[in-house]
């Protein structure tokens, strides 16, 4: 008996996108979470977006996902980052009111008629052979479904560390999902451990803001979503302060009471987001580290100490916090802590995010070894879309590296795997001139429509935008000044489109200016993409038996068998495979196709 078309395990950023995608495509979906009150929590920093991450959020929106709308309605500061460093690497970031964000996420789920949100804890996946059939819960509910989406975040065998203190929790005072971890291990899933951390929250009224620098947001807020043009939200300030020699001294003197340095934590943490004790120990020459003091929400007293993540004992945390200017009397409301958790090796996933270990099981978010809300949501959306397609028996949506950061993310995970929490960086993308945040709709919305989640209205907005861009270009080519077309004139470094007084929205003008000025570079990148796609289009059947291919080296045979690449392009990105082995694979693939 099938109770639901789909079961989604977990109500974080991946679970939200996955369950919305499935239910909006008309499938009866059950989202099971350990706590209804924790849906869509921002467990760590109160911000969405940032470099490369802002691009992910806008790509999610372009494909019909929810994250952009959630942050648009709950932001309390907005900034375009890296304005002066070139358009290809700019991205939006917003501070979020994390309480409203979480509440809005829950309300959004509750509004979906095909979606049932239910509080329980999944302890096992019911399976037969190598097929997922549903889930078993702690209270003994056995729920059957066609597909299962697993998004456990930091909860699978999550363990929290603060100095000597340890607890089996996924977030402070929220119980971990231990049984699920044990049962998946028993089933043979390849499980590893990762670690991440979060800083203390302090009380606003106990801070001396006058001793800190003020960091203001942009005056004009812009939406992440492509569906509307305006955002009207309160605009709050953040603050900046610095650590000093005294701070570092306290940390150094107490480093032995750190669970990380004491060897209690085995999971690997992210190098790009180190704890303050890591920064002090690894970079002893640095005299100070910058700390951002950020509001967690309108009307809340909780302030987030960005940059001060720590798992040192609480009294040590309090002591070093008090050495920072403006924080001398800070009242700690929540301590910083480290959390270690289970993740499943993403090499055991197809690019559709379906598990190679178990058919009909899709995995997304931190469970796959990533970090970050945006990375989680991106995978949740793709897992949801592909779970729906699996039910219909349709081919999977696999985004290309040349068309989206989401494509880069999933390709990296499923082709190279990861040994530390994976975060998106612009430098991971080969074609970043083309993967700008403002072109996400042009790159993905038509695809989103084709794959089911994008409605007519969004498509029409895209067509409208494209027409306006074209119109401006026509105008530039027709108009003449100083014996040149405006189009050619705009290519000169000091010229700006604003000086031509064209009557059009800033967003449109900015984009045209970028396209004209970067034309040569963009064309070159497009040419590179042409070469890249040649291999992406050669598909490899997942059932290909690598043991039967004559001449492959043992090492490559093993690598191909474990990754089971779906295209020749993907095969070529597997690290450490010899050139001649690719050639043998290409021959075998062609032979295989012809004999079928």
């Amino acid at each position: 008996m099938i109770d639901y078309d789909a079961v989604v395990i977990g109500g974080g950023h991946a679970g939200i996108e996955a369950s919305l995608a499935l239910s909006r495509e008309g499938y009866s979906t059950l989202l099971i979470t350990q706590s209804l009150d924790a849906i869509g929590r921002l467990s760590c920093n109160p911000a969405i977006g940032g470099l490369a991450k802002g691009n992910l959020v806008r790509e999610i929106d372009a494909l019909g996902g929810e994250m952009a709308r959630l942050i648009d309605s709950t932001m309390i500061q907005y900034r375009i980052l890296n304005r002066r460093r070139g358009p290809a690497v700019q991205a939006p970031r917003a501070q979020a009111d994390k309480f409203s964000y979480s509440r809005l996420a829950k309300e959004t789920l509750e509004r979906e008629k095909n979606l049932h949100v239910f509080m329980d804890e999944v302890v096992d996946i019911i399976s037969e052979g190598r097929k997922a059939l549903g889930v078993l819960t702690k209270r003994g509910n056995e729920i059957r479904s066609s597909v299962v989406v697993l998004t456990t975040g930091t909860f699978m065998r999550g363990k929290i560390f603060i100095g000597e203190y340890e607890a089996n929790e996924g977030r402070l005072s929220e119980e971990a999902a231990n049984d699920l971890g044990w049962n998946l291990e028993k089933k043979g899933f390849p499980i590893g451990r990762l670690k991440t951390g979060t800083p203390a929250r302090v009380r606003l009224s106990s801070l001396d803001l006058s001793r800190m620098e003020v960091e203001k947001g942009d005056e004009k807020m812009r939406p992440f979503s492509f569906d509307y043009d305006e955002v009207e939200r309160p605009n709050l300030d953040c603050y900046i302060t610095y650590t000093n020699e005294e701070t570092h001294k306290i940390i150094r003197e107490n480093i032995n009471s750190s669970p990380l340095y004491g060897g209690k934590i085995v999971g690997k943490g992210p190098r790009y987001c180190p704890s303050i004790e890591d920064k002090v120990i690894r970079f002893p020459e640095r005299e100070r580290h910058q700390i951002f003091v950020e509001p967690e929400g309108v009307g809340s007293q909780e302030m987030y100490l960005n940059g001060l993540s720590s798992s040192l004992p609480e009294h040590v945390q309090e002591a070093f916090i008090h050495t920072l200017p403006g924080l001398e009397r800070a009242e700690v409301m929540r301590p910083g802590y480290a959390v270690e958790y289970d993740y499943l090796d993403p090499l055991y996933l197809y690019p559709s995010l379906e598990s190679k270990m178990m058919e009909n099981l899709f995995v997304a978010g931190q469970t796959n070894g990533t970090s970050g809300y945006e990375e989680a949501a991106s995978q949740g959306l793709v897992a949801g879309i592909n779970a729906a397609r699996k039910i219909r028996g349709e081919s999977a949506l696999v985004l290309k590296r040349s068309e989206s950061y989401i494509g880069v993310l999933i390709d990296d995970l499923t082709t190279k795997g990861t040994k530390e929490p994976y975060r998106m960086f612009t430098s991971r993308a080969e074609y970043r001139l083309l993967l700008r945040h403002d072109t996400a709709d042009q790159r993905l919305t038509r695809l989103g429509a084709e794959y089911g989640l994008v409605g007519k209205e969004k498509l029409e907005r895209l067509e409208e935008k494209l027409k306006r861009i074209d119109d401006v270009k026509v105008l530039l080519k027709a108009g003449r000044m100083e014996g040149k077309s405006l189009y050619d004139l705009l290519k000169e470094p000091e010229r700006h489109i604003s000086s031509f007084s064209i009557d059009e929205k800033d967003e449109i003008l900015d984009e045209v200016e970028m396209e004209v000025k970067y034309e040569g570079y963009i064309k070159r990148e497009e040419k590179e993409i042409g070469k890249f796609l040649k291999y992406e289009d050669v598909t490899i059947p997942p059932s290909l038996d690598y043991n039967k291919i004559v001449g492959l080296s043992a090492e490559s045979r093993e690598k191909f068998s474990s990754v089971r690449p779906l295209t020749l392009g993907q095969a070529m990105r597997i690290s450490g495979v010899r050139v001649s082995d690719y050639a043998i694979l290409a021959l075998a693939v062609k032979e295989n196709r012809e004999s079928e």
Partner: protein
Amino acid sequence: MQSDMRRYETDEPIYGLATGYQKSAIAIFRLSGKGCIELFSKAFSNARRLEKASSGTVIHGYVIEGGERIDEVMVIKYTSGHGYTGEEALEVMCHGSLVIIKRLSVLFEHLSFAQALPGEFTYRAFMHGKMDLVEAEAVEELISSKSETSSNMALMRLSGGLSKEIDNIKGELLDILSSLEVYLDYAEDEVEEEWVYPEEEVISIIGRLDGIASTYNATRIYQEGATVVLAGRTNAGKSSLFNALLKEERAIVSSFEGTTRDYIEADVLFGSVPVRLFDTAGLRESGEAIESEGIRRSRKLITSADLVIYLLEDGEEESDVGNENTLFVHSKSDIRKSDGISFSSITGEGLDELVKKAEEMLIGKAEEHPGYVPISSERERDALLEASSILKESLGKSDLSLDLLVLYFRDALSSLQVLTGEITSDDVLENLFSKFCLGK
């Protein structure tokens, strides 16, 4: 990064020697890929006939470079769909001397043909449906070539000094790239300082790249071959050595003084260096007109030679022969033992050593920047020059926005891949995290 190490491709123009790399009467080159006829025509005397000819036709003509005829050849033309690979293709039959083979190879690279990977022609034949028995041939070729492929890999081929210098340059470029990527991956509020174009460092790297590139004295030593002159007193055994080096009877060898009246030349290979070897008339004052004319010409050759191999007679002291790049050797070691390099033209003893020493001296001559070990292939030289030219271009663009400037450093690094191996975005991030304290 952008361009990878060359992979097995279809359609890209490639060349390969179908006959072995050894001296023979005739050698055959295969050219295959889109546009290969047009490319080859640039260096073919009979280009118009070649263009008009139908598939399967044989055309006679000369391969020409810079106005000079390199060799007389026969060319078979195949239009797309007809040749071995199924692609537009040519078979070029030339004379089978190693110098000709080497010069044609260099020429093909100039014409932007890539050297075929082992088994690549068969690979293409299969991919274009010209062949169906995979296991029988292509795979076999690929497997048997594996050792060769890996021995061709980037760094392995490079000798110690060069590999270290290239490594340093790679490291410095990677540092610049990472320092730039920091600004693209972390926002302005997290990275406080502004990025400054490291002009001094870039200029230094450019200088070193150009320096290494110029050690490859391609235009002379490798392309045209080096000029090596055998000199010595009359009857010192020059002609016997000449023949021993040629391994065939070509000069008239006799034990009478003054037998070799004018010089004789032949193409040989000293290790990797193609050599035009001259046997000169004995340096002896003579009343005979022909001989003294011969001696005058010999002297001229000696002054302009890349290397003179001077055969010392027993008891003769080393002296100034008019060329500072002279290798003094003792001949006829079969008759008497002596110090230094000595050899016997009759038993062959000591010949290998002589050739090796001569090669070393020739390569040493190609080296104009002391301290660098010379690179050994055209491809490597081109890679170095490309990287250098990309960096030069970036020098003039230091006011570009960072998202564009970074492309120059990415490209410079990726054009060095022939020498350094592939550099991935993980390498960049790895370097970045280890050098910069980042992250909120």
